[in-house]
């Protein structure tokens, strides 16, 4: 009997290495919800990259806005794009009004349902959502199924939303991809991970496995580690969105970001100051770690 070395593995990557795994034309799902726990460090890195013609699936916030403003989107699959406190996302609006990309407009629950179908490797899931609306006049939602039971009800077939890659931002992870999302609402990040071929996450902090304290934190363990392909440490990686309880939404920066849609020059200035220089420069430009850590809680 030959002895084998105990196999070890380490999923740690840099943010740049995660972005280098992405390809033009991919379908990418982005976790979080509007202004909460968006993987913004990854979004800014994509904005700096030459990537193009992406299909984006998102409960949209500034992630969609930045990718729209930098011309990365070929098609957007969404139910809304909003900055919550600024309900209308200005960069998304400009791009939509210019017809800059194709769209599939869904209901929030339909996004869930499409991801669920993909996660279950089903071609579709039946639903009533969309009946009577203009959503179902879009070709992708044009198929109907009839209940095979006595009720004979006609239902919408929500096609599976299969993702090439899901991008998430989490609070803690070990090097094997055991992750914790400590925020009070996990949103649909689990389904994004399950519907994707590969999932990459950024974490506020990489910690030894014992520090995850999984028995106490089991409910924050979003998915099993087998679903996480790579993990990068990115402190304040959700900023300007929130990653409560670690830090809150930066309303002041959100205003700066919103104002950047006023003109092409304003956007160029924002991009130069907050995106082009990389994350170290970004953190400094938004006031530094202590400022972010001290942000007050926002009211929704």
């Amino acid at each position, binding site marked *: 009997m030959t002895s084998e070395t105990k196999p070890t593995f380490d999923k740690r990557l840099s943010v740049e290495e995660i972005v280098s795994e992405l390809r033009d034309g991919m379908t990418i799902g982005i976790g979080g919800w509007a202004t909460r726990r968006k993987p913004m460090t990854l979004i800014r890195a994509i904005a700096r990259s030459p990537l193009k013609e992406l299909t984006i699936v998102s409960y949209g916030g500034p992630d969609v806005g930045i990718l729209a403003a930098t011309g990365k989107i070929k098609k957007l699959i969404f139910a*809304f794009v909003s900055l919550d406190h600024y309900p209308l996302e200005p960069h998304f609006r400009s791009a939509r009004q210019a017809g800059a990309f194709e769209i599939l*407009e869904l209901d929030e629950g339909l996004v869930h349902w499409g991801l669920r179908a993909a996660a279950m490797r089903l071609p579709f899931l039946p639903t*009533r*959502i969309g009946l009577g*609306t203009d959503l179902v006049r879009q070709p992708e939602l044009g198929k109907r199924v009839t209940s095979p039971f006595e009720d004979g009800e006609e239902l919408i077939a929500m096609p599976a939303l299969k993702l090439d890659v899901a991008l998430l931002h989490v609070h803690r992870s070990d090097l094997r991809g055991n992750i914790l999302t400590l925020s*009070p609402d996990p949103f649909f990040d689990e389904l994004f991970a399950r519907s994707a071929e590969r999932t990459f996450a950024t974490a506020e902090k990489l910690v030894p496995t014992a520090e995850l304290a999984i028995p106490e934190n089991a409910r924050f363990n979003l998915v099993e580690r087998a679903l996480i392909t790579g993990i990068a440490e990115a402190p304040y990686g959700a900023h300007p969105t929130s990653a409560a309880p670690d830090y809150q939404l930066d309303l002041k920066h959100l205003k700066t970001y919103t104002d950047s849609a006023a003109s092409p020059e304003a956007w160029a200035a924002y991009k130069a100051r907050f995106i082009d220089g990389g994350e170290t420069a970004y953190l400094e430009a938004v006031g530094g770690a202590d400022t972010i850590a001290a942000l007050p809680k926002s009211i*929704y």
Partner: protein
Amino acid sequence: MMETNYSLAELLIVAAAEAWRRDGEVMGTGIGPLPRIAVSLAKATFNPRLATTDGECWYTTAPLPPGEDAMKESEIEGWSPYDRVFSGLWGGKRHAMVAPTQFDRFGQSNISVIGNHAKPKSALLGARGFPGNSVHHPNSFFFASHNTRSFVSGEVDFVCTAGYNPERYSNGKPPALLDLRIIVSDLAVLDFSGKGRAIRVVSLHPGITFEQVQDNTGFPLERPEQIPVTPAPTAEQLTLIRNLDPNNVRKAVIKGDPAGDRR
């Protein structure tokens, strides 16, 4: 005893609260400041079983005032992440009052785009949860400004909520669970109890005539023989509203914060 010194916003809050009177123990959602204060008033008076949230992911024991510092003293009584909101609403245990940009004679509403969907004149929010809400639980509607831009003559530009338009259904019948309740605007309270689910005026706000409502609506309204005046807030209701909205957010909703009685 009726209080005569009340604002239009306060009148609308009291009228809107009626939406939840007979709902029992469901999630009560009011989108926008006045519907939110209205659901709070319903909970504080005739339907204490209503469950209301902080707008994020917590149910609070007492309804939460709109505005800053609202969470300071509120007791959290339950958890309401979006996954549970969807599960609950698909089960029908919710009644939402929402404030769409456009509305039509069928009760179809729009918060997605003005103009063409592929290249809109104005891109708004997107359909959000409107399509699913509309076919799973009761819905009511709120308009701070009743005019022909909001109450449109044809169909809305992008139908986000199912309505009573037979042409939109393969069998000509709206879904069984479609349940559109009341419409509260700055001019009147309306509902869908007209012939063939036509929109009918239920009550006129003090000093408003049927003709004014009709002139500001892009489609014909059903006119009952007798139209009552929308009840004024009672002194008790006004006191409660002041407690439920200590930041006086309601004052800023309607331009000039006009009086509720326009006679």
